[in-house]
């Protein structure tokens, strides 16, 4: 024990950091801030350190070459001892890190921590969020599979929409005219050197400000922030009611960080690594590209946005959102901190969360995408065929063969791009069915040139039978009734 002590003293006599470390550890924090609500920031930091450690391990084997990357991922998964586990921890760690950073942001927003004098701490935090998402996207690219390839295609297509210089931006992003060797190396440089460097730098500034300005006090409803008096009040509170950061607040941070890392390890061990999916070969077009979960909401917006608004929303929306977050503390930098008296703030978080969850759900089910194999994989429900005439059965065949099923569900199976057709005959008359099939419209292609008159007649005959047994098909009120077949 004495030996350890004297060794440490030897080092500190030269390093001169002991005092700084002791002061940081002992610095008083408001006793109520040593709360379980205040653990997300340190949790994100712990996950970042985990990412650095596992990332370095992966870089020992991974080959950042468009030709070799996919094979090196296979080696990591299947040949390199425990390579699968390190990949899994890195992948799950990134998912956890994005989630914890978002929770941290929601918490400091609801607790008014961005108000005077911590405006800049919040702004640097916004930069850290952007940088973290940058890590997530570039990391997804390094998992160089089909999803990575076509994800780059989506990024490229968005960048190509920039007016005037879009084409040049695409070239700089890709490092050339197509997604190829130089694209992967530049995303490797971003993921491994540039963005981690930014992350470390901004985390340093963020932490420095947290230490120098003091951690946000636990907000009390009615205790308003006033620039004239706040600093003095805070210092008074810390002097009267402060507890040392270590161990009173630190032990909760420690428990939460440990639990997070344990959770990452359990997920990694149980669920394994993410991908890689199919090989990054653009000639294999039998693929359904999907982004990782934290970008599914953008994927949904790209599908659901009216086309006329899309370019604007994709190019101007994200910068505007980031700008709004950056300017928030300048706009609402004083006044009430407690979420109990900030209903709008609570609603913003609730709506943002619900919106995010809804869009993510849509993104994972993608009801706007045709189900590419529905026409050949799904049977026509038997009730639509039994006891029907030959022409109706032929119509059912046309319905399948012409891929109608890819966009229209029958019996709850098939595409969801267009309306389900189980009761289409109650909505459209025979003439309207003909018109819709031949001319399309309402976001449906026209099939006039693709169907022979016989096929069209059969198809409409089939569609006319699609109505519940107790509900008659729609009819044209201007025509005399004809007996229902």
């Amino acid at each position, binding site marked *: 024990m004495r030996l350890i002590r004297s060794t440490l003293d030897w080092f500190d006599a030269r390093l001169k950091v002991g005092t700084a470390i002791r002061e940081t550890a002992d610095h008083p924090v408001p006793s109520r801030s040593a709360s379980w609500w205040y653990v997300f920031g340190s949790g994100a930091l712990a996950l970042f350190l985990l990412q650095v450690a596992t990332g370095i391990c992966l870089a020992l084997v991974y080959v950042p070459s468009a030709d070799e990357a996919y094979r090196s991922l296979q080696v990591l998964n299947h040949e390199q001892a425990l390579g699968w586990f390190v990949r899994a921890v890195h992948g799950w760690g990134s998912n956890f890190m994005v989630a914890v950073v978002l929770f941290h942001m929601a918490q400091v927003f609801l607790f008014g921590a961005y108000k005077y004098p911590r405006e800049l701490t919040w702004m640097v935090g916004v930069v850290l969020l952007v940088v973290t998402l940058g890590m997530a996207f570039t990391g997804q690219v390094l998992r160089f599979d089909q999803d990575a390839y076509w994800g780059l295609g989506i990024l490229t297509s968005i960048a190509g929409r920039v007016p005037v210089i879009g084409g040049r931006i695409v070239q700089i992003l890709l490092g050339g005219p197509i997604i*190829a060797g130089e694209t992967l190396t530049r995303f490797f440089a971003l993921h491994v050197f540039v963005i981690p460097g930014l992350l470390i730098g901004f985390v340093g500034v963020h932490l420095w400000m947290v230490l120098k300005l003091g951690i946000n006090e636990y907000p009390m409803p009615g205790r308003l922030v006033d620039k004239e008096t706040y600093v003095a009040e805070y210092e008074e509170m810390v002097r009267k009611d402060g507890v040392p950061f270590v161990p009173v607040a630190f032990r909760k941070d420690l428990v939460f960080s440990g639990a997070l890392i344990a959770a990452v390890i359990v997920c990694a061990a149980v669920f394994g690594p993410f991908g890689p999916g199919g090989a990054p070969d653009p000639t294999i077009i039998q693929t359904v590209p999907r982004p990782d979960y934290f970008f599914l909401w953008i994927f949904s917006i790209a599908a659901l946005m009216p086309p006329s608004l899309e370019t604007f929303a994709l190019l101007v929306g994200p910068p505007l959102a980031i700008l709004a977050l950056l300017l928030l503390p300048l706009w609402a930098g004083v006044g009430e901190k407690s979420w109990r008296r900030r209903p709008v703030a609570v609603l913003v978080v609730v709506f943002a969360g619900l919106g995010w969850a809804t869009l993510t759900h849509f993104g994972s089910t993608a009801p706007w995408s045709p189900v590419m194999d529905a026409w050949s994989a799904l049977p026509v429900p038997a009730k639509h065929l039994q006891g029907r005439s030959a022409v109706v059965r032929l119509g059912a065949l046309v319905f399948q063969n012409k891929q109608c099923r890819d966009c229209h569900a029958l019996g709850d199976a098939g595409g969801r791009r267009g309306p389900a057709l189980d009761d289409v005959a109650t909505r459209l008359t025979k003439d309207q069915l003909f018109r819709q099939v031949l*001319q399309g419209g309402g976001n449906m292609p026209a099939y006039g040139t693709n169907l022979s008159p016989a096929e069209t007649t059969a198809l409409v005959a089939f569609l006319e039978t699609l109505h519940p047994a107790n509900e008659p098909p729609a009819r044209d009120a201007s025509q005399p009734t004809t007996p229902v077949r």
Partner: protein
Amino acid sequence: MTAPVTRRSLLLKFGIFLNAVAGLALAIPIVGYLLSPARRKRMEGALTWVELGEVSAFPEGQVRMATFRNPSTRPWDGQTADIPCWVRRTGPSEFQVFAVNCAHLGCPVRWFPQSNLFLCPCHGGAYYADGSRAAGPPPRGLFRYDYKIENGRLQIKAGMMPTLGNVIASRTTPGEPCA
């Protein structure tokens, strides 16, 4: 009151000046290096004629996939430089060659000969056989390559991923009829 110029203050100023010059001499080539993919010469040189094969490999009235090796490649490009395209032969020497990249966000469109449609798996874009937009979010029809026939072989002018910022073909008519 200005401080008198001494040898020491001059040395400091000279030091700052020297570093500024050296910094500039380093920054200019680095910026040039970083922006080099967007140089006009390189962008214009990217598009060249590549061969897709014998004309007879593409039956009239049908749509077939063809692949080509991207003309400008690096030795480590691997499979990523193998680029697919859709070839539609409309007459003895009339063709339409479409990029596989959806005009919406670049996902690969698939050809369905039964319904004569190109369908995109990402956001549900649909195109007719002639490449014009049929449904979904795409803002225009499929991107087309310029083509020519030499010695009975089909050639296209290719080498760049088509986006709304880089419309590859000169003959593409943006206002193609939609349904």
